[in-house]
């Protein structure tokens, strides 16, 4: 059957976009569970993508490229930490500034690569790497956040910072650690995007929107690693169907608009539906980042 073959292909195709979104979202999940929102996620992805491209093209090594992407993401995490945790600047101000700082510098860095093609993963390898990374990170974070006592430490900060610090949680160290872990996952997402999705070739703005969508995945996955992974995979599926949309839908010009905007419209709608479901079922997200 052609249809079933197509389905299998689609499921496979979805893995890479799902892993890119999922890794970025899982990093944000850690930060949000510790009671902060890093709106700068989009910028982190941009700068990591640009740095990884420039360095992997220059050195020919994907590993070194990844490390460069990690260094760039860590730089933004450090700025966030110093301004928000140490100085006490509003986290939304810094987060949004980091979006522009990260995407601005990301393009400058990416341009250093001169548009050449860098090293890349083969399509099969890329899918295997993506699947392994996503599954391993999801399970790892599940065990860490929900099953280990350090996970309780992190979550206690997201629920009640004052109580946590009275119990002896060193707020700054935990937040710094979560931001650093976020940088690692963002670098992994950006590298996967570069080596597995865009065949080692950097294009300005190619990664646009991934960070914002990942922020949405955290909400849709209800701040739980498994939920975030599932939400990311579903959106990954939408991405792999996206190119087929025009042929699937009855002819008509309006649909052309919907194709580009489909992931965003879908996520807005899903967030609205999810919030109704959460309210009906009495679920509460981490207290410190809930605003009703």
């Amino acid at each position: 059957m052609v249809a079933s073959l197509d389905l299998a292909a689609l499921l496979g195709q979805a893995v890479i976009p799902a892993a890119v979104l999922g890794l970025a979202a899982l990093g944000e999940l850690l930060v949000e569970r510790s009671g902060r929102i890093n709106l700068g996620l989009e910028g982190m992805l941009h700068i990591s993508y640009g740095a990884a491209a420039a360095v992997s093209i220059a050195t020919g090594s994907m590993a070194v490229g990844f490390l460069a992407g990690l260094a760039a993401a860590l730089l933004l995490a450090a700025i966030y930490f110093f301004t928000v945790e140490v100085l006490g600047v509003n986290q939304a101000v810094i987060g949004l500034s980091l979006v522009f700082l990260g995407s601005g510098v990301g393009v400058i860095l990416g341009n250093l690569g001169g548009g050449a093609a860098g090293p890349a993963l083969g399509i099969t390898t890329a899918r295997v790497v993506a699947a392994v990374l996503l599954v391993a990170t999801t399970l790892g974070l599940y065990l860490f956040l929900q099953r280990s006592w350090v996970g309780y430490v992190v979550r206690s900060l997201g629920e009640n910072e004052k109580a946590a610090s009275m119990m002896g949680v060193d707020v700054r160290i935990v937040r710094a650690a979560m931001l650093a872990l976020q940088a690692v996952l963002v670098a992994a997402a950006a590298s996967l995007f570069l080596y597995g999705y865009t065949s080692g070739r950097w294009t300005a703005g190619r990664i646009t929107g991934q960070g914002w969508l990942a922020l949405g995945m955290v909400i849709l996955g209800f701040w739980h690693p498994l939920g975030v992974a599932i939400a990311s995979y579903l959106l990954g599926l939408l991405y792999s169907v996206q190119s087929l949309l025009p042929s699937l839908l009855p002819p008509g010009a309006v649909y052309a608009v919907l194709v580009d905007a489909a992931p965003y419209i879908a996520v807005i709608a899903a967030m609205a539906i999810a919030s109704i479901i959460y309210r009906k079922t009495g679920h509460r997200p981490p207290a410190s980042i809930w605003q009703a």
Partner: protein
Amino acid sequence: MRQAPIVEAECVTKVYPGGVVANDCVSLAIYSGEVLGLLGENGAGKTTFVSILAGVLEPDSGVIRVKGRPVRFRLPRDALRNGIALVPQNPMLVDAFTVAENVMLAARLAGLRIGLGEARERVRELSERYGLLVDPDARVWGLSMGERQRAEIVKALAVDASVLLLDEPTAHLSPPEAEALLRLSRRLASEGRSVVLITHRLREVLGVADRIAVMRSGRLVGVVEASEASREKLLEMMFGERLAKQPLSEPRRSRAAAGGVVLEVKGLWVLGDHGEWSVKGVDLSIRAGEVVGIAGVAGNGQRELLEALVGIRRVARGTIRFAGIDVTGKGPGARGRLGMAVVPEQRLGWALVPSKDLVFNVALGFYSSPRGPYRGVVVDWGGARRIAEKIVETMKVKTPGLDAPVEAMSGGNMQRFIVGREVLKKPRLLLAMNPTSGLDYAAAKAVDKILVDVASAGAAVLVISEDLEELLNVADRILVMNKGRIVYEAERPFDVEKIAAAMVEEVEGT
């Protein structure tokens, strides 16, 4: 008979930004196996002192020694590792976790390697041994104040704390609960631990403490052996020369007959934050010129009731009639326009915008008052300033200036400002919750007097308070709230025993 102290503070000093000297060279030793009462009126610096011992605050100067060794606590964890645990006045637990999860977390952070199963076991065991009745698997948000307090104590015991600092542990407890807690501190001391019991209630320290330390305006006035202490002596130490000038309790006042009904609540049902019924079928009516008090242990639905009356919490069932109009479905704006004034439970963020100046906070407070400084949508800032000036003058508010942020004022001055603002609205109905909490004696008396004066001027006044003493002084009628219901109604002369009993008797469930 006493050995070397287990904890010793030497000339500990703490000055808050703005120059308030909270601790002025306080030196105090704590010995093993004793209950040390730490007595003083609100604002004397007791909480600051124990917060420093517990690593919550860092002192500006001074030395703390544990078993003779100087230590420096940067975080509460450092104190915990030295066996010092603080049980704060408002329990500090993670709401979304169970009691056992909280205990496991605290134990791990104190360096004990225990898992969730062991934590559960330990809670069960401690709870049994000391009769604390704490369910290890209960989520904290579902617990009453008393249960939370006991969970805090279990938590401290679970990490093998040898020094327990109990900050006003009885503030939110019913009399029998408080009794049990005092007995528990005695027992813990007899097992060789040290208990520091902070309170402003003389009776409590005289009953259980071995020694009593008294603080006044940031200084340690003295330490006396409980066997040598007397009520009079302690009072003199607490209040100094002011004692002679002010009687401790005012004579009961008499009141003219009350007028027409201003607020009438019928069969009110309200949901709490977690979807549980917090107010269950409350009936209430207040006449002009009368002060009605609502007594009860904290967390029995008083806050939700007030929020429903103010109009910021949805009414599930029942009706609220105010000034002859059904306002059940109306918001705070409509009620404000009809002449409702509110003194909320918390000052900053609930009554005042902390970073804004006095003039702005007048404009906000009067936002929907018919007497507000507004001409239609236009704000009359000059008018707001005149009102602010008037409040500062009549209420003797000490402030750096009308243009200084309200957060720069002390708690007492903030409260005077809030009460002054609400009274100046010449309200038909004044709602106040714990209006004197955290105020020193004189300020509390002044606020209570104003509440009575407002009623005398013809307004209906509802005071919800955890402080029964206060209600006995100001109220014409007292309703007792317990588990979301009004379980008892008393008129003058009050039968204090019955009121206290109604506050704590078991009430049948929904």
